[in-house]
């Protein structure tokens, strides 16, 4: 019996060794360990053994069973590894082939610029105000302190829909509307589309975009105007940017100024972008004119404020080095796809 078992074990191990596929491995297990397997049958014959022999043969049979099972399990692992290796080998790809195309579009560069400006001012506690593009002449001119006979009101300068309705030439009417509706303190920016009677060329367009800002509160000073706009310039063009305020004239403000920033391209030494001056003119600003405050029923003895305005198309062109304004309105994909 003992010999018979050992011979069975040797045969089984030989069979196992011969297996080279996972699916035939189970056949070996069934052949020896299954219900009708050789080992099972052999063990059934144990009843015939003497009482002395039975525990010895029983122990041996269990050892053999364990040995076979361990071998099956080892062989299974080896075969699985082999199979995976084969699969891996078969499934190798040329990882340098191009990926599948996904498409993303872009915002228009003007929108990207506007977003950037908005974020800067939103961070300073400003809100965004909007107003009509087709506007009463009195909102576009009178309430902004523009003299009655000023040439800006001419048909050669401003588009008219009716005698008293114009396409706004600036976004300042929005400021008037906000001041008439809300009580100070106010901090608003108003980006938007504006119109002037200009033929389109590399630097002019009858349709363009502006962003104006307004701050009204008790005790707002010209130093606040300088500090706020200087901070804005540093955030937009970089920490190293310097600003220069030159006296200027606007009807909406008094005193008035224009703000130049050091050229972001050359840092102020002079280049093509800044026409070799080292400076770029960015915006107009000033303290809100007392007449304007009065038009909006705000007492200039109690409140003061500042306002500023800038051309968004121009800033976009400067920022990206775009040399022709018409490109902004043309929407050639070869242009649009450049602004990720």
């Amino acid at each position: 019996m003992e010999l018979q078992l050992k011979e069975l074990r040797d045969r089984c191990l030989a069979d196992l060794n011969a297996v080279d596929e996972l699916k035939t491995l189970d056949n070996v297990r069934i052949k020896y360990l299954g219900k009708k397997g050789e080992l099972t049958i052999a063990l059934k014959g144990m009843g015939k053994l003497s009482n002395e022999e039975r525990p010895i043969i029983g122990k041996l049979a269990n050892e053999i069973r364990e040995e076979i099972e361990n071998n099956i399990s080892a062989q299974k692992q080896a075969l699985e590894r082999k199979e995976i290796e084969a699969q891996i080998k078969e499934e190798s790809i040329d990882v340098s082939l191009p990926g599948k195309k996904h498409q993303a579009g872009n915002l228009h560069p003007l929108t990207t610029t506007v977003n950037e400006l908005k974020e800067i001012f939103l961070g300073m506690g400003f809100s965004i105000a909007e107003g009509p593009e087709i506007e009463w002449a009195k909102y576009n001119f009178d309430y902004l302190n523009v003299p009655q006979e000023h040439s800006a009101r001419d048909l050669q300068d401003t588009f008219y829909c009716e005698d008293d309705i114009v396409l706004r030439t600036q976004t300042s009417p929005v400021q008037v509307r906000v001041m008439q509706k809300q009580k100070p303190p106010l901090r608003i920016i108003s980006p938007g589309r504006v119109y002037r009677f200009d033929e389109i060329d590399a630097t002019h367009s009858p349709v363009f975009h502006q962003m104006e800002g307004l701050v009204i509160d008790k005790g707002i000073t010209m130093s606040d105007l300088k500090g706020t706009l200087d901070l804005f310039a540093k955030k937009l063009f970089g920490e190293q940017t310097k600003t220069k305020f030159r006296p200027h004239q606007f009807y909406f403000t008094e005193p008035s100024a224009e703000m130049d920033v050091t050229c972001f391209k050359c840092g102020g030494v002079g280049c093509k972008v800044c026409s070799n001056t080292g400076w770029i003119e960015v915006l107009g600003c000033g303290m809100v004119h007392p007449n304007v405050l009065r038009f909006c029923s705000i007492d200039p003895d109690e409140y003061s404020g500042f306002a500023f305005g800038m051309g968004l198309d121009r800033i976009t062109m400067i920022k990206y080095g775009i040399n022709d304004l018409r490109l902004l309105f043309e929407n050639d994909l070869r242009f649009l796809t450049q602004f990720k």
Partner: protein
Amino acid sequence: MLVSLNWLKEYVDIKIPPFDFGEALTMSGTKVETLTVVSENVVNIFTGKITKIEPHPNADKLVVCTVDMGTDERVIVTAAKNVFEGAIVPVAVDGAVIANGTKIGTNDFRGLLSYGMFCSIEELGMNSDLFAKEIMEGILILPENTPLGMDARELLWLNDVIIDVELTANRSDCQSIIGIARESAATLDLPMADYKTYTAIENTDEIADYLSVKIENSACPRYVAKMLKVKKIEPSPLWMQVKLINSGVRPINNIVDVTNYVMLELGQPLHAFDYHSLQSKEIVVNTTTDKKIITLDNKERDIDETMLMITNGKAPVAIAGVMGGENSEITDNTTLIVLESACFNKGSVRLTAKHLGLRTEASSRFEKGVDPELAGIAALRATQLFLEIGACEVIEGLIDVYPKVETLKKVTLDINWFNAFVGITLTIDEISNMLSRLFFKVAKISEAVLEVEVPSYRGDIELKEDLAEEVARIFGYDNIPGTIMGGETMIGGKTPVQKFEDRLKNLLVGQGYYETLTTSFTSEKRLHGLNTELEDNLIALINPLGEENSIMRNTLIGHQLEVISLNYNRKNPFGRFFELSNTYHKNPNSGELPLEEMMLVISAYGSDDYFELKGMVELLLDQAGIKYPEFIAGGSEMLHPGRKAEIFVEGTKLGEIGEIHPLVVKNYELPKRCYVCQISFKALYGCASIDNKFVDLPKFPASNRDLAILLKQDIPAASIETIIRKNSGDILESIELFDVYTGAQIPEGYKSLAYALNFRHHQRTLNDNDINPVIDQILSELKITFDAQLRE
């Protein structure tokens, strides 16, 4: 405006380099655009007198000149035609450099040495735009009394720096050498010199024998006239010509040059009439009914009764403030002149000049506003110059019609207010000093308050804020510190609508669409191209830039098609675009502003089809929290009749989607298939519900049922879905159309739609008893409504 630095220096002793001076002026409010040396290169050109001209022995076209240079004599060989014995000319001597940088030496001309070269205006680098061609081509002949051996740089002010300044609209007082000199003196804190004026005591009113003046129109606040006898009409002295040239004005003769000189110097436009040509003893200022006048430039001008004229009582002799008439022009025979120094209202001159399309040095000054006080000052200054250069003799008396003399304004300035407003701390004396530098008369009326008298020419100063700017700019804007705003903290931020706009744009960009930027204008023609009847609520512009920009757009689709057309024609093979922008419509309520409606337009061509675009729109609606949009066949005429749909959400129309109509494709030169969707932003936002809330994940399994429905071909799939949804109640979790089939085993004119339905209950597991009745109900309604049945 061009300003000669040399001329300016006659009034203010400017010692700092020109560049620094320009910066200083800019920073005090007079913006310097450019600084240009008249003739940077020129050296070693001196005046010389031609004493003898002899023919060249070896060349017909050359002559040999002996030239007296004051200290020596030299021989110059020249081909110039306009030289003569006795002429004083500029001579570039050995080692000279002319304007274009060429070095001049001693040269051999056919066997004879020439020790230099005579120079033309161009070779000297003078402003060549001002001279006639024949003068340009010859050697510059200088006046007889010019000293010999003088450096041309000094004599002709070739070393002058021309400052181009950009003046703001409120500073008409700066349109002169004196005006800029005042700013320079204030900026640099330097004294300002005076100019000589006519101060002789006159004993008679001789002028009254010749002339009277009547102002019959309020557009002329003042009219001053002085009369002079002309001694000789001749060129003005070189120093005067040079100043005119460096100011960009062409010298003409001694009479006209003086009027221009005073205009440049003081800012008062002057005009000189030939007295005898006036053929009248009176001048009347008024509008007239005349239709024509020939102006000094020999052009006939159409005039009308809105334009202010200077007349001789019968006919116009000048267009007031714009240009004189040819009928009273100064000629070589003029013996008696009337010098007009008048003030005309800026509005009147502006409109007249605009209607005539005639802008002159005079009109552009009047348009910005000229101080009436200046008229008297300028008349006397011009008289002084006429006498000084020996052009005229005075006729005693002065006519000065000045109906309403304005009193000088006084503005008070509270120092504490000023310091608080600007954010600095200046003493009352410092402020007073800065205002005095600007020629304000300042009186201290209390410890902290100044009373400031404003000069007549500073019409722009009315309020304390105006004075604040004056002090601040002299103090220097750059010296004002920058501070962070105090006051209440403001939260700020975007409104929900503004955030929604951002979300829409970002979603479209993420899906491969490019944002476009198009203008707001369209035209009847462009709209006709869209195959639609023109709406009667279009907004037309009164003054459009051409027909193609004459209407405010009422749809964004036209512009999207133009974008597609441009890209298609530029061989960009496919494109996806969107724009969120306004459309404009008449307001049905009169007395209100037109309506502006923001629309979202999405378009595609090249690779996409209707369902691709529809999928984008569905995603967009889904992201806006809109559950069951309906796409119902229909839409505007610009879309393909078989491929268009209107989009509804719970009965509200959002917009339309479809393929572009083949006719429109032709009109707009589009690729054969383009797709577009236009949605009202307001309606979309109104339907949106983007209030995100967490719902527990399902704990019970779902049951799936597939239904294949057989129905007539022309029944829209959407209506089947509606019936399924309506009959399923809360337990229908999702519905998906996974197959549309026609062909074998399906009767002609029918189709099969296969849906996967997913049912789930949140509190329990569903069984057949829950679902079967629902399916039965669905099938029954489909049968009744569409005669549709379950396909076995």
